[in-house]
């Protein structure tokens, strides 16, 4: 698995090197943070994903998430931010077995707006964290997951 990833990343890095020469964008492709994805509680997941950083609440982040998920298997989420120089956006689901759901690495060419559909085992806070060159910011929302319906 690691070998494969290394191959993939080296390919990606070659691409990135070519790009640097052409467009001078920084590479976005870092090695996936396996430790953060493997963490089993929110604190560990955040500490591994953003070591040494503390997230401050920000109203410049919008997390669009349903109040009640239609189905925990497919919960659509959108995170937007009007903060400057966004480097990454991560989505944590507090009560999932592994809270870090996904992490997006962004560069100056990106608009800080990403969407993803995730799984949620049960009702939980969903936390969107936005990393900028000024620090780490967050907003959260509870998403209720109900089980045991006829499906409409």
């Amino acid at each position: 698995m690691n070998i494969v990833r290394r191959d993939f990343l080296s390919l990606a890095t070659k691409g990135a090197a070519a790009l640097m020469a052409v467009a001078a964008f920084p590479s976005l492709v870092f090695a996936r943070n396996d430790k953060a994805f493997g963490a089993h509680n929110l604190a560990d997941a955040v500490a591994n994903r953003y070591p040494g950083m503390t997230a401050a609440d920000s109203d410049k982040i919008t997390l669009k998430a349903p109040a009640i998920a239609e189905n925990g298997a497919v919960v659509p989420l959108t995170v937007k931010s009007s903060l400057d120089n966004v480097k990454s956006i991560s989505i944590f689901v507090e009560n999932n077995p592994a809270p870090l759901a996904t992490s997006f690495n962004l560069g100056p060419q990106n608009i800080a707006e990403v969407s993803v559909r995730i799984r949620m085992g049960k009702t939980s806070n969903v936390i969107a964290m936005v990393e900028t060159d000024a620090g780490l910011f967050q907003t959260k929302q509870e998403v209720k997951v109900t089980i045991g319906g006829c499906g409409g």
Partner: protein
Amino acid sequence: MNKNIKLGAVLIGLLVTTVSYQASDSYNDMVKKDTQQFRDFFSKKFPYVEMTDYANGVYALDSASREQWEEIEEFPPYELNVDNGESLFNTPFKNGKTYADCFSNGGIGIAQNYPRYEEGAKEVMTIELAINRCRQSNGEKPLKYKGGALADISAYMHYTSRGNKLALTVDSKGAYAAYEAGKKFFYSKRGQLNFSCADCHMALAGQRLRADITSPALGHTTGFPVYRSKWNALGTLHRRYGGCNKNVRAKPFKAQSTEYRELQYFQTLMNNGYELNGPSARK
């Protein structure tokens, strides 16, 4: 003499035609009357819901989940199924023929003509059954009816028929009997919970049964096949019927059984005039 016989034959012929025309008109009139009552029920129950919106299933009534649904429909998971269905549809059988050879207009944009009553075989023909009949007549094995390749092919055929209006007719005694059987099924209580289709999807439509709001029966069939989050897959209407029956703890019928085909015939006739909008996403 000869002339008289001929005249007589023509007269009888005319008479027979008139009688059978009257009959088929009255079947369609009876169905039309039912359809009107069916719609009146919903327009009285939910006066704020636009008639056309019933094609969107439960989302016509459940505004909270509608937003999530619209978000998923933005790039719905069934698009992968439609693509796969298209390539399956265009892959020739071993004998060199294709699905296109079995259907009118090469199978494109024709889903609104199903289900229909086949006078010869005296049965309701659904598009899924027609797909398998096509395979079998070309020496291929039939596909499973609840999902998989068959649902993908059906999804593609429905996708090419999006926006086409249902305009089914009930033209014979046999067709009307099939319609009546479907109607009877729809209104009959079943299972340990003693619910009929009508109980959940008319009387209790829009209300919460355990965790979920139930969908209105009007518009039920237009969006199928559906990609359900619960299934994590695309499935056919008859898979859904089976699930509904199980929910009320009634032993389900087989997909493409006579019972479910007749139920589909009745339900689809109630949606006459609606545009097909399948495949679609459901919870």
